[in-house]
Protein backbone atom coordinates (compact mmCIF):
# COMPACT_ATOMS: atom_id res chain seq x y z
CA UNK A 1 0.00 0.00 0.00
CA UNK A 2 1.41 3.39 -1.00
CA UNK A 3 1.59 6.21 1.52
CA UNK A 4 -1.14 8.12 -0.36
CA UNK A 5 -3.50 5.11 -0.23
CA UNK A 6 -2.68 4.72 3.45
CA UNK A 7 -3.56 8.35 4.06
CA UNK A 8 -6.76 8.24 2.00
CA UNK A 9 -7.85 5.08 3.77
CA UNK A 10 -7.13 6.76 7.11
CA UNK A 11 -9.18 9.81 6.19
CA UNK A 12 -12.14 7.74 4.92
CA UNK A 13 -12.19 5.69 8.10
CA UNK A 14 -11.83 8.85 10.18
CA UNK A 15 -14.88 10.39 8.47
CA UNK A 16 -16.83 7.19 9.10
CA UNK A 17 -15.95 7.45 12.80
CA UNK A 18 -17.06 11.07 12.95
CA UNK A 19 -20.33 10.65 11.06
CA UNK A 20 -21.24 7.44 12.91
CA UNK A 21 -20.99 9.53 16.12
CA UNK A 22 -18.57 7.05 17.64
CA UNK A 23 -18.96 7.18 21.48
CA UNK A 24 -15.20 7.18 22.12
CA UNK A 25 -14.66 10.15 19.79
CA UNK A 26 -17.72 11.94 21.16
CA UNK A 27 -16.63 11.50 24.79
CA UNK A 28 -13.16 12.87 24.02
CA UNK A 29 -14.66 15.85 22.17
CA UNK A 30 -17.03 16.44 25.08
CA UNK A 31 -14.21 16.45 27.65
CA UNK A 32 -12.15 18.82 25.48
CA UNK A 33 -15.01 21.28 25.11
CA UNK A 34 -16.08 21.10 28.77
CA UNK A 35 -12.56 21.54 30.16
CA UNK A 36 -11.58 24.31 27.73
CA UNK A 37 -14.85 26.23 28.07
CA UNK A 38 -14.82 26.04 31.87
CA UNK A 39 -11.21 27.22 32.00
CA UNK A 40 -12.03 30.04 29.55
CA UNK A 41 -15.03 31.20 31.59
CA UNK A 42 -13.01 31.22 34.83
CA UNK A 43 -10.09 32.97 33.13
CA UNK A 44 -12.41 35.58 31.60
CA UNK A 45 -13.91 36.31 35.02
CA UNK A 46 -10.40 36.97 36.34
CA UNK A 47 -8.65 38.47 33.31
CA UNK A 48 -11.13 41.18 32.30
CA UNK A 49 -11.45 42.75 35.77
CA UNK A 50 -7.65 42.47 36.01
CA UNK A 51 -7.19 44.31 32.70
CA UNK A 52 -9.58 47.07 33.83
CA UNK A 53 -7.87 47.34 37.21
CA UNK A 54 -4.50 47.77 35.50
CA UNK A 55 -5.95 50.36 33.11
CA UNK A 56 -7.95 52.44 35.58
CA UNK A 57 -6.28 52.11 38.98
CA UNK A 58 -2.94 53.23 40.29
CA UNK A 59 -1.50 50.83 42.82
CA UNK A 60 1.84 49.58 44.05
CA UNK A 61 3.22 46.77 41.93
CA UNK A 62 1.19 47.72 38.87
CA UNK A 63 4.20 47.63 36.55
CA UNK A 64 5.21 44.27 38.02
CA UNK A 65 1.73 42.93 37.33
CA UNK A 66 1.91 44.12 33.71
CA UNK A 67 5.27 42.34 33.34
CA UNK A 68 3.74 39.20 34.88
CA UNK A 69 0.82 39.30 32.42
CA UNK A 70 3.16 39.82 29.46
CA UNK A 71 5.43 37.00 30.61
CA UNK A 72 2.44 34.76 31.24
CA UNK A 73 1.31 35.18 27.63
CA UNK A 74 4.31 33.16 26.52
CA UNK A 75 4.42 30.55 29.31
CA UNK A 76 5.57 27.10 28.10
CA UNK A 77 2.60 24.73 28.68
CA UNK A 78 4.77 21.85 29.91
CA UNK A 79 6.23 24.13 32.57
CA UNK A 80 2.71 25.10 33.70
CA UNK A 81 1.76 21.43 33.70
CA UNK A 82 4.77 20.55 35.84
CA UNK A 83 4.12 23.48 38.20
CA UNK A 84 0.44 22.57 38.70
CA UNK A 85 1.34 18.89 39.08
CA UNK A 86 3.85 19.69 41.85
CA UNK A 87 1.22 21.84 43.57
CA UNK A 88 -1.53 19.21 43.52
CA UNK A 89 0.34 15.98 44.20
CA UNK A 90 -0.54 14.59 47.66
CA UNK A 91 2.66 16.03 49.20
CA UNK A 92 2.23 19.39 47.45
CA UNK A 93 0.72 22.54 49.00
CA UNK A 94 -2.61 21.92 47.23
CA UNK A 95 -2.49 18.15 47.77
CA UNK A 96 -5.53 18.31 50.05
CA UNK A 97 -7.66 19.12 47.00
CA UNK A 98 -7.05 15.58 45.76
CA UNK A 99 -7.41 16.53 42.10
CA UNK A 100 -4.40 14.84 40.48
CA UNK A 101 -5.43 13.27 37.13
CA UNK A 102 -8.85 14.91 37.14
CA UNK A 103 -10.61 17.38 34.88
CA UNK A 104 -10.37 19.96 37.68
CA UNK A 105 -6.58 19.75 37.50
CA UNK A 106 -6.73 20.23 33.73
CA UNK A 107 -9.01 23.26 34.18
CA UNK A 108 -6.56 24.71 36.72
CA UNK A 109 -3.61 24.27 34.33
CA UNK A 110 -5.51 25.82 31.42
CA UNK A 111 -6.70 28.64 33.68
CA UNK A 112 -3.08 29.51 34.50
CA UNK A 113 -2.12 29.30 30.83
CA UNK A 114 -4.89 31.40 29.29
CA UNK A 115 -5.65 34.02 31.96
CA UNK A 116 -2.57 36.09 30.96
CA UNK A 117 -3.52 35.76 27.28
CA UNK A 118 -7.06 37.07 27.83
CA UNK A 119 -5.79 39.78 30.21
CA UNK A 120 -2.99 40.87 27.86
CA UNK A 121 -5.14 41.14 24.74
CA UNK A 122 -7.97 42.81 26.72
CA UNK A 123 -5.46 45.28 28.11
CA UNK A 124 -4.38 46.23 24.58
CA UNK A 125 -8.04 46.64 23.54
CA UNK A 126 -8.73 48.86 26.56
CA UNK A 127 -5.60 50.93 25.94
CA UNK A 128 -6.73 51.47 22.34
CA UNK A 129 -9.84 53.34 23.56
CA UNK A 130 -9.04 57.05 23.08
CA UNK A 131 -8.22 58.86 26.29
CA UNK A 132 -10.44 61.71 25.11
CA UNK A 133 -13.47 59.40 25.24
CA UNK A 134 -12.84 58.58 28.90
CA UNK A 135 -12.22 62.25 29.65
CA UNK A 136 -15.49 63.11 27.92
CA UNK A 137 -17.32 60.77 30.30
CA UNK A 138 -15.77 62.64 33.24
CA UNK A 139 -16.37 66.09 31.85
CA UNK A 140 -20.04 65.22 31.30
CA UNK A 141 -20.30 64.35 34.99
CA UNK A 142 -19.75 60.60 34.76
CA UNK A 143 -18.03 58.68 37.52
CA UNK A 144 -15.13 56.24 37.25
CA UNK A 145 -17.74 53.46 37.00
CA UNK A 146 -19.36 55.22 34.02
CA UNK A 147 -15.91 55.52 32.40
CA UNK A 148 -15.33 51.78 32.86
CA UNK A 149 -18.73 50.98 31.32
CA UNK A 150 -18.09 53.21 28.28
CA UNK A 151 -14.61 51.70 27.86
CA UNK A 152 -16.09 48.21 28.02
CA UNK A 153 -18.61 49.15 25.31
CA UNK A 154 -15.91 50.68 23.15
CA UNK A 155 -13.43 47.81 23.57
CA UNK A 156 -16.01 45.02 23.49
CA UNK A 157 -14.95 43.48 20.18
CA UNK A 158 -11.29 43.46 21.23
CA UNK A 159 -12.23 41.83 24.53
CA UNK A 160 -14.36 39.19 22.78
CA UNK A 161 -11.38 38.50 20.52
CA UNK A 162 -9.23 38.07 23.64
CA UNK A 163 -11.65 35.52 25.11
CA UNK A 164 -11.78 33.60 21.83
CA UNK A 165 -7.98 33.62 21.60
CA UNK A 166 -7.91 32.11 25.10
CA UNK A 167 -10.46 29.47 24.13
CA UNK A 168 -8.50 28.61 20.98
CA UNK A 169 -5.32 28.22 23.00
CA UNK A 170 -7.10 26.04 25.58
CA UNK A 171 -8.57 23.75 22.92
CA UNK A 172 -5.22 23.30 21.19
CA UNK A 173 -3.18 22.85 24.37
CA UNK A 174 -1.59 19.47 25.05
CA UNK A 175 1.53 19.63 27.26
CA UNK A 176 0.05 20.88 30.53
CA UNK A 177 -3.15 18.83 30.52
CA UNK A 178 -1.25 15.68 29.62
CA UNK A 179 0.87 16.07 32.76
CA UNK A 180 -1.92 16.97 35.20
CA UNK A 181 -4.80 15.07 33.57
CA UNK A 182 -3.01 11.86 32.71
CA UNK A 183 -4.87 11.23 29.42
CA UNK A 184 -7.17 8.72 31.14
CA UNK A 185 -9.98 6.76 29.52
CA UNK A 186 -12.09 4.10 31.23
CA UNK A 187 -11.09 0.49 30.71
CA UNK A 188 -12.68 -1.45 27.86
CA UNK A 189 -13.37 -0.42 24.31
CA UNK A 190 -16.34 1.49 22.89
CA UNK A 191 -17.39 1.59 19.27
CA UNK A 192 -14.65 -0.85 18.33
CA UNK A 193 -11.80 1.61 18.74
CA UNK A 194 -9.61 3.11 21.45
CA UNK A 195 -10.40 2.41 25.06
CA UNK A 196 -13.46 3.21 27.19
CA UNK A 197 -15.11 6.62 27.42
CA UNK A 198 -12.85 9.55 28.20
CA UNK A 199 -12.23 10.68 31.74
CA UNK A 200 -9.40 13.16 31.23
CA UNK A 201 -8.58 12.41 27.61
CA UNK A 202 -8.95 15.39 25.28
CA UNK A 203 -8.66 15.75 21.52
CA UNK A 204 -5.01 16.77 21.73
CA UNK A 205 -3.86 14.20 24.28
CA UNK A 206 -5.83 11.44 22.52
CA UNK A 207 -4.12 12.27 19.20
CA UNK A 208 -0.72 11.73 20.83
CA UNK A 209 -1.72 8.41 22.38
CA UNK A 210 -3.63 7.05 19.34
CA UNK A 211 -0.77 7.99 17.02
CA UNK A 212 1.76 6.27 19.27
CA UNK A 213 -0.46 3.17 19.24
CA UNK A 214 -0.58 3.30 15.42
CA UNK A 215 -4.34 3.99 15.17
CA UNK A 216 -3.97 6.61 12.46
CA UNK A 217 -7.63 6.80 11.39
CA UNK A 218 -8.74 7.61 14.98
CA UNK A 219 -5.98 10.22 15.19
CA UNK A 220 -7.10 11.76 11.92
CA UNK A 221 -10.74 11.80 13.08
CA UNK A 222 -9.73 13.55 16.31
CA UNK A 223 -7.48 15.93 14.34
CA UNK A 224 -10.31 16.88 11.97
CA UNK A 225 -12.62 17.66 14.90
CA UNK A 226 -9.88 19.65 16.65
CA UNK A 227 -9.11 21.67 13.54
CA UNK A 228 -12.83 22.35 12.96
CA UNK A 229 -13.24 23.57 16.56
CA UNK A 230 -10.13 25.78 16.50
CA UNK A 231 -11.03 27.07 13.02
CA UNK A 232 -14.56 27.97 14.18
CA UNK A 233 -13.12 29.89 17.13
CA UNK A 234 -10.67 31.71 14.85
CA UNK A 235 -13.38 32.57 12.31
CA UNK A 236 -15.41 34.05 15.16
CA UNK A 237 -12.35 35.94 16.44
CA UNK A 238 -11.66 37.32 12.95
CA UNK A 239 -15.28 38.39 12.65
CA UNK A 240 -15.05 40.40 15.87
CA UNK A 241 -11.63 41.80 14.91
CA UNK A 242 -13.16 43.12 11.69
CA UNK A 243 -16.07 44.66 13.64
CA UNK A 244 -13.51 46.35 15.85
Amino acid at each position, binding site marked *: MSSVDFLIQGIVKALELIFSLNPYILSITGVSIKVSCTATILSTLTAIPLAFAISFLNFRGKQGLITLVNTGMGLPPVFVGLFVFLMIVPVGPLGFLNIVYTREAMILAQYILITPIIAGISLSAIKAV*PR*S*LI*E*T*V*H*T*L*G*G*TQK*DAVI*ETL*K*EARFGIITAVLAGLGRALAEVGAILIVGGNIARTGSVGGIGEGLSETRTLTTAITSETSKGDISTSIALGIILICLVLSVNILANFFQRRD
Partner: protein
Amino acid sequence: MEELIQIENLRKVFGEKEVLRNIDLTILKGEIFAFIGPSGAGKTTLLRTLNFFEIPEKGNIIFKGMNSDIINIRRRMSLLFQTPAIFNNSVFENVAYGLKVRGIDKKIIDKKVGDALNIVGLPGMEKQNARTLSGGEAQRMAFARAIVYDPQILLLDEPTANLDPVNVMKIEEIIKRIRNERATTIVLATHNIPQVRRIADRVGILLNGELIEVNSKEGIFSKPKDARSEAFIKGEMIY
Protein backbone atom coordinates in the same frame (compact mmCIF):
# COMPACT_ATOMS: atom_id res chain seq x y z
CA MET B 1 -20.71 91.09 38.02
CA GLU B 2 -20.37 88.39 40.66
CA GLU B 3 -17.10 86.44 40.92
CA LEU B 4 -17.40 82.77 39.99
CA ILE B 5 -13.90 81.29 39.65
CA GLN B 6 -10.86 82.58 41.46
CA ILE B 7 -7.45 81.32 40.31
CA GLU B 8 -4.57 82.04 42.69
CA ASN B 9 -0.88 81.70 41.92
CA LEU B 10 -1.37 78.63 39.75
CA ARG B 11 1.65 76.64 38.61
CA LYS B 12 1.72 73.52 36.45
CA VAL B 13 4.80 71.61 35.35
CA PHE B 14 5.16 68.80 32.80
CA GLY B 15 8.54 67.17 33.36
CA GLU B 16 11.09 69.96 33.08
CA LYS B 17 8.71 72.39 31.40
CA GLU B 18 6.74 74.93 33.37
CA VAL B 19 3.54 75.19 31.35
CA LEU B 20 1.64 77.53 33.68
CA ARG B 21 3.22 79.94 36.12
CA ASN B 22 1.86 82.40 38.65
CA ILE B 23 -1.59 82.57 37.11
CA ASP B 24 -3.85 84.91 39.07
CA LEU B 25 -7.29 85.54 37.64
CA THR B 26 -10.92 85.99 38.54
CA ILE B 27 -13.63 84.88 36.14
CA LEU B 28 -17.01 86.54 36.53
CA LYS B 29 -20.42 84.94 36.46
CA GLY B 30 -22.11 85.11 33.05
CA GLU B 31 -19.14 86.49 31.10
CA ILE B 32 -17.40 85.13 28.04
CA PHE B 33 -13.73 85.07 28.98
CA ALA B 34 -11.27 84.24 26.23
CA PHE B 35 -7.72 83.02 26.72
CA ILE B 36 -5.70 83.81 23.65
CA GLY B 37 -2.13 83.00 22.87
CA PRO B 38 -0.02 81.05 20.43
CA SER B 39 0.05 77.24 20.34
CA GLY B 40 1.85 75.82 23.37
CA ALA B 41 1.11 78.88 25.51
CA GLY B 42 -0.76 76.78 28.10
CA LYS B 43 -4.37 77.54 27.15
CA THR B 44 -5.52 73.91 26.97
CA THR B 45 -3.63 73.00 30.15
CA LEU B 46 -5.37 75.85 31.97
CA LEU B 47 -8.81 74.63 30.85
CA ARG B 48 -7.91 71.05 31.76
CA THR B 49 -6.76 72.22 35.19
CA LEU B 50 -10.06 74.04 35.70
CA ASN B 51 -11.85 70.76 34.87
CA PHE B 52 -9.63 68.73 37.29
CA PHE B 53 -7.86 66.73 34.57
CA GLU B 54 -4.54 68.23 35.64
CA ILE B 55 -3.42 68.71 39.22
CA PRO B 56 -1.43 71.92 39.70
CA GLU B 57 1.92 71.83 41.49
CA LYS B 58 1.04 75.05 43.28
CA GLY B 59 -1.86 77.45 43.72
CA ASN B 60 -5.62 77.30 44.23
CA ILE B 61 -8.75 77.33 42.15
CA ILE B 62 -11.81 78.42 44.10
CA PHE B 63 -15.25 77.88 42.65
CA LYS B 64 -17.47 80.36 44.48
CA GLY B 65 -20.67 78.96 45.89
CA MET B 66 -19.71 75.37 45.16
CA ASN B 67 -18.61 72.76 47.66
CA SER B 68 -15.23 71.09 47.40
CA ASP B 69 -16.42 67.73 46.06
CA ILE B 70 -14.79 67.31 42.63
CA ILE B 71 -17.63 65.29 41.09
CA ASN B 72 -20.20 67.89 42.18
CA ILE B 73 -18.17 70.83 40.88
CA ARG B 74 -17.50 68.93 37.66
CA ARG B 75 -21.20 68.30 37.25
CA ARG B 76 -21.79 72.05 37.19
CA MET B 77 -19.42 72.57 34.29
CA SER B 78 -18.62 71.11 30.94
CA LEU B 79 -15.46 70.99 28.85
CA LEU B 80 -15.71 70.86 25.08
CA PHE B 81 -12.59 69.52 23.41
CA GLN B 82 -11.14 70.77 20.14
CA THR B 83 -11.90 67.38 18.56
CA PRO B 84 -14.93 65.93 20.29
CA ALA B 85 -14.87 62.29 21.35
CA ILE B 86 -18.09 60.69 20.21
CA PHE B 87 -19.68 57.61 21.75
CA ASN B 88 -20.46 54.87 19.24
CA ASN B 89 -24.17 55.43 19.60
CA SER B 90 -27.03 57.55 18.31
CA VAL B 91 -27.04 61.35 18.47
CA PHE B 92 -29.77 61.08 21.12
CA GLU B 93 -27.72 58.76 23.34
CA ASN B 94 -24.67 61.01 23.00
CA VAL B 95 -26.55 64.17 23.92
CA ALA B 96 -28.51 62.45 26.70
CA TYR B 97 -25.35 61.05 28.33
CA GLY B 98 -24.79 63.84 30.87
CA LEU B 99 -28.45 63.67 31.93
CA LYS B 100 -28.45 59.89 32.27
CA VAL B 101 -25.40 59.82 34.54
CA ARG B 102 -27.26 62.35 36.71
CA GLY B 103 -30.24 60.01 36.94
CA ILE B 104 -32.68 62.46 35.30
CA ASP B 105 -36.20 61.25 34.45
CA LYS B 106 -36.67 59.91 30.90
CA LYS B 107 -39.42 62.39 29.94
CA ILE B 108 -37.23 65.32 30.99
CA ILE B 109 -34.30 63.80 29.09
CA ASP B 110 -36.39 63.56 25.90
CA LYS B 111 -37.39 67.21 26.18
CA LYS B 112 -33.96 68.54 27.08
CA VAL B 113 -32.23 66.58 24.30
CA GLY B 114 -34.76 67.93 21.79
CA ASP B 115 -34.22 71.50 23.06
CA ALA B 116 -30.42 71.17 22.94
CA LEU B 117 -30.48 69.80 19.40
CA ASN B 118 -32.74 72.68 18.36
CA ILE B 119 -30.30 75.21 19.81
CA VAL B 120 -27.38 73.72 17.85
CA GLY B 121 -29.41 73.36 14.65
CA LEU B 122 -29.60 69.58 14.56
CA PRO B 123 -33.32 68.93 15.11
CA GLY B 124 -34.68 65.54 14.09
CA MET B 125 -31.25 63.89 14.02
CA GLU B 126 -31.72 61.96 17.27
CA LYS B 127 -31.65 58.52 15.68
CA GLN B 128 -28.61 58.99 13.44
CA ASN B 129 -25.39 57.27 14.50
CA ALA B 130 -23.25 60.10 15.88
CA ARG B 131 -20.10 58.77 14.23
CA THR B 132 -21.62 59.35 10.78
CA LEU B 133 -21.94 63.13 11.36
CA SER B 134 -19.76 65.61 9.48
CA GLY B 135 -17.05 67.52 11.39
CA GLY B 136 -19.23 70.59 11.87
CA GLU B 137 -22.28 68.55 12.85
CA ALA B 138 -20.20 66.48 15.29
CA GLN B 139 -18.91 69.64 16.96
CA ARG B 140 -22.44 71.04 17.22
CA MET B 141 -23.68 67.73 18.63
CA ALA B 142 -20.86 67.86 21.19
CA PHE B 143 -22.05 71.37 22.02
CA ALA B 144 -25.59 70.07 22.56
CA ARG B 145 -24.14 67.32 24.78
CA ALA B 146 -22.21 69.90 26.79
CA ILE B 147 -25.14 72.28 27.37
CA VAL B 148 -28.00 69.82 27.77
CA TYR B 149 -27.68 69.73 31.56
CA ASP B 150 -27.41 73.53 31.90
CA PRO B 151 -23.85 73.78 33.24
CA GLN B 152 -22.95 76.94 35.10
CA ILE B 153 -19.54 76.99 33.43
CA LEU B 154 -18.73 76.00 29.86
CA LEU B 155 -15.05 75.48 29.06
CA LEU B 156 -14.35 75.58 25.32
CA ASP B 157 -11.00 74.48 23.92
CA GLU B 158 -10.59 75.82 20.37
CA PRO B 159 -14.23 74.98 19.60
CA THR B 160 -14.08 76.13 15.98
CA ALA B 161 -10.63 74.90 14.96
CA ASN B 162 -10.73 73.00 11.65
CA LEU B 163 -14.31 74.10 10.89
CA ASP B 164 -15.52 75.88 7.78
CA PRO B 165 -16.71 79.53 8.08
CA VAL B 166 -20.41 78.58 8.10
CA ASN B 167 -19.94 76.20 11.02
CA VAL B 168 -17.69 78.73 12.79
CA MET B 169 -20.50 81.28 12.53
CA LYS B 170 -23.07 78.77 13.80
CA ILE B 171 -20.92 77.81 16.81
CA GLU B 172 -20.33 81.46 17.69
CA GLU B 173 -24.08 82.11 17.51
CA ILE B 174 -24.67 79.17 19.85
CA ILE B 175 -22.05 80.48 22.33
CA LYS B 176 -23.67 83.92 22.41
CA ARG B 177 -27.16 82.45 22.68
CA ILE B 178 -26.24 80.18 25.61
CA ARG B 179 -24.67 83.07 27.46
CA ASN B 180 -27.58 85.41 26.79
CA GLU B 181 -30.40 82.95 27.47
CA ARG B 182 -28.90 80.87 30.28
CA ALA B 183 -26.33 83.23 31.81
CA THR B 184 -23.73 80.47 31.43
CA THR B 185 -20.17 81.50 32.18
CA ILE B 186 -18.04 80.67 29.17
CA VAL B 187 -14.27 80.26 29.26
CA LEU B 188 -12.83 80.02 25.78
CA ALA B 189 -9.31 79.06 24.72
CA THR B 190 -8.43 80.08 21.19
CA HIS B 191 -5.80 81.59 18.95
CA ASN B 192 -8.48 82.95 16.65
CA ILE B 193 -8.21 86.70 17.28
CA PRO B 194 -11.16 87.77 15.07
CA GLN B 195 -13.34 85.31 16.98
CA VAL B 196 -12.33 86.87 20.28
CA ARG B 197 -13.20 90.27 18.85
CA ARG B 198 -16.64 88.96 17.87
CA ILE B 199 -17.75 87.12 21.03
CA ALA B 200 -15.57 87.75 24.12
CA ASP B 201 -16.27 90.15 26.99
CA ARG B 202 -12.85 89.94 28.59
CA VAL B 203 -9.56 88.57 27.37
CA GLY B 204 -6.45 87.08 28.94
CA ILE B 205 -3.27 86.75 26.91
CA LEU B 206 -1.17 83.70 27.71
CA LEU B 207 2.43 83.58 26.62
CA ASN B 208 4.79 80.77 27.56
CA GLY B 209 2.58 79.78 30.48
CA GLU B 210 2.34 83.31 31.83
CA LEU B 211 -0.81 85.42 31.85
CA ILE B 212 0.73 88.64 30.62
CA GLU B 213 -2.42 90.71 30.45
CA VAL B 214 -6.11 90.56 31.42
CA ASN B 215 -8.26 93.27 29.95
CA SER B 216 -11.66 94.04 28.51
CA LYS B 217 -12.09 93.17 24.84
CA GLU B 218 -12.13 96.85 23.97
CA GLY B 219 -9.04 97.48 26.09
CA ILE B 220 -7.02 94.65 24.63
CA PHE B 221 -7.71 95.65 21.04
CA SER B 222 -7.51 99.44 21.41
CA LYS B 223 -5.07 100.01 24.25
CA PRO B 224 -3.15 96.91 25.34
CA LYS B 225 -1.11 97.32 28.52
CA ASP B 226 1.75 95.05 27.48
CA ALA B 227 3.89 95.45 24.38
CA ARG B 228 3.88 91.67 23.85
CA SER B 229 0.05 91.72 23.88
CA GLU B 230 0.05 94.39 21.21
CA ALA B 231 2.52 92.40 19.10
CA PHE B 232 0.41 89.25 19.39
CA ILE B 233 -2.87 91.04 18.58
CA LYS B 234 -1.30 92.70 15.55
CA GLY B 235 0.12 89.39 14.34
CA GLU B 236 3.69 90.63 14.67
CA MET B 237 4.73 87.88 17.04
CA ILE B 238 6.44 85.29 14.88
CA TYR B 239 7.57 81.94 16.35
